[in-house]
């Protein structure tokens, strides 16, 4: 279990201040705009930055004080960092073999081959997508209990993204205690994979909800100005002025469907969630 208890980290004007929990056996997504604090949260969990206040624990132990043996159960894929670009995959295989006793070389080689990653080419000559695939495969290669991934599918085409998501699903089915924490800008990835979603905005959690609930209960109501005036706003989370009137974001789609049969209700996805909860009025 990963627990962030009143974590505070300040960089100049930016202040991250949040608490969250990732129980064993769950897939948790963190969404938010650029600069919202997603990567800072990931770094705090991985013990790469020191919190100004609060605690970050993994299985009850301070993230900054994890031993080498404890870190073996974590697989990390960062969006902007990996093995030196001067190495080749053949080199990385030798390094991982000596780093993780549980390194599954056959699996790693098969996946590299399936994803078209050459073993003898320096990583600096890889495309952005190839580098992203490699980072994910490295994190998956040693049977970690917890995967922490910052934008794992960024830069990938649809086919490669689906392949990576399939690998993550397969990883989850092998052991029901395995957990994944991931950030992504691609809402369809999160919708198809995550059990719950945290929405971060300006360093704070503005919403935490089960993905199923978001998909089934959240919606955008499109109403003209007259309807808006008479609308029961008890379940309106956010409102945005539009040329036709107002777009209202609700977490009680059914309530409005039953009581206002004439209004347009568009099912809310994660993209709408981000747009309405961080950009509306």
């Amino acid at each position, binding site marked *: 279990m990963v627990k962030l208890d009143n974590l505070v980290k300040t960089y100049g004007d930016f202040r991250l201040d949040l608490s969250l929990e990732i129980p064993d056996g769950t897939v948790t997504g963190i969404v938010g705009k650029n600069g919202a604090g997603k990567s800072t949260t990931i770094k705090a969990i991985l013990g790469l930055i020191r919190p100004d206040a609060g605690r970050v624990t993994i299985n009850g132990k301070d993230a900054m004080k994890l031993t080498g043996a404890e870190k073996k159960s974590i697989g990390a894929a960062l969006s*902007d960092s990996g093995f030196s*670009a001067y190495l080749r995959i053949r080199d990385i295989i030798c390094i*991982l073999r000596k*780093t993780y006793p549980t390194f599954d070389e056959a699996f790693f080689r098969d996946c590299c081959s399936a994803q078209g990653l050459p073993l003898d080419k320096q990583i600096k000559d890889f495309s952005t997508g190839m580098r992203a695939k490699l980072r994910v495969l490295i994190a998956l290669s040693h049977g970690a209990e917890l995967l922490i991934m910052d934008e794992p599918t960024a830069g990938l085409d649809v086919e490669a993204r689906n392949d990576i998501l399939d690998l993550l699903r397969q990883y989850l089915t092998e052991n029901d205690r395995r957990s994944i924490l991931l950030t992504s800008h691609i809402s369809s990835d999160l919708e198809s994979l995550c059990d719950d979603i945290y929405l971060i905005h300006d360093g704070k959690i503005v919403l935490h909800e089960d993905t199923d609930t978001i998909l089934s209960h959240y919606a955008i109501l499109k109403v003209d100005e007259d309807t808006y005036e008479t609308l029961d706003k008890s379940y309106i989370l956010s409102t945005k002025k539009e040329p036709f009137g107002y777009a209202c974001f609700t977490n009680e789609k059914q309530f409005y469907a039953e009581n206002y049969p004439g209004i347009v209700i568009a099912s809310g996805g994660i993209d709408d969630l981000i747009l309405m909860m961080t950009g509306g009025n």
Partner: protein
Amino acid sequence: MLGLLEKDLRLTLTRKQTLVIFFVLALIMGMSMDGSFIVAYLTMLATILAVGTISYDEFDNGFAFLMTLPFSRKTYVTEKYLFSLLLAAAAWCVGAILFCIGSGIRHDAASLTDELPMLLAILPVMYLTAAIMIPLQLKYGAEKSRIVLLIFFGVIAILVFGSKRIFEGSNALAELTKALEGTSSAVVLLALVAGCALITFVSYLWSARIMEKKEF
């Protein structure tokens, strides 16, 4: 630790061209020059190459990922000192072999026995390069550490020059040299190794502290 050593060895081997040029230069010098310069030259280059792996780790924000691998920050520092020592020792061995071959070709067996204490002293003294460069590179990064290193050597040069001026006219230096002349080379060597070990240990503690405080 083994994974880190493997990584650094492989990163060093990516600089094959540099290694070949160094080796060819060493061969030419070994065959043509008298003295133990060749051993010092190779040991120094190996130490610089070993410490240079920190630049590779730092490049493209690589530190962040490395610190997610299963070892502590202290282990990372320990590995850098160990890798530098191993590479320096390996280069010293190659240099010593070339020196022996060169002496053999020149039928100069006497120089080998004369220079043995000097040869043995090269390794700890050259390793001090790593002891100075590792903490600087960890603290200031590859680019800034070069400037800091230049300032460092500048200060040392000023101190040496200054002390020379101070001792000019006094015979303290001559007395010290005279006292050392009576000491056996084994004792001097041992004192040198102990001194270098102490400086390296202090440097290691400093590096470990820098890494513990670092954020990625």
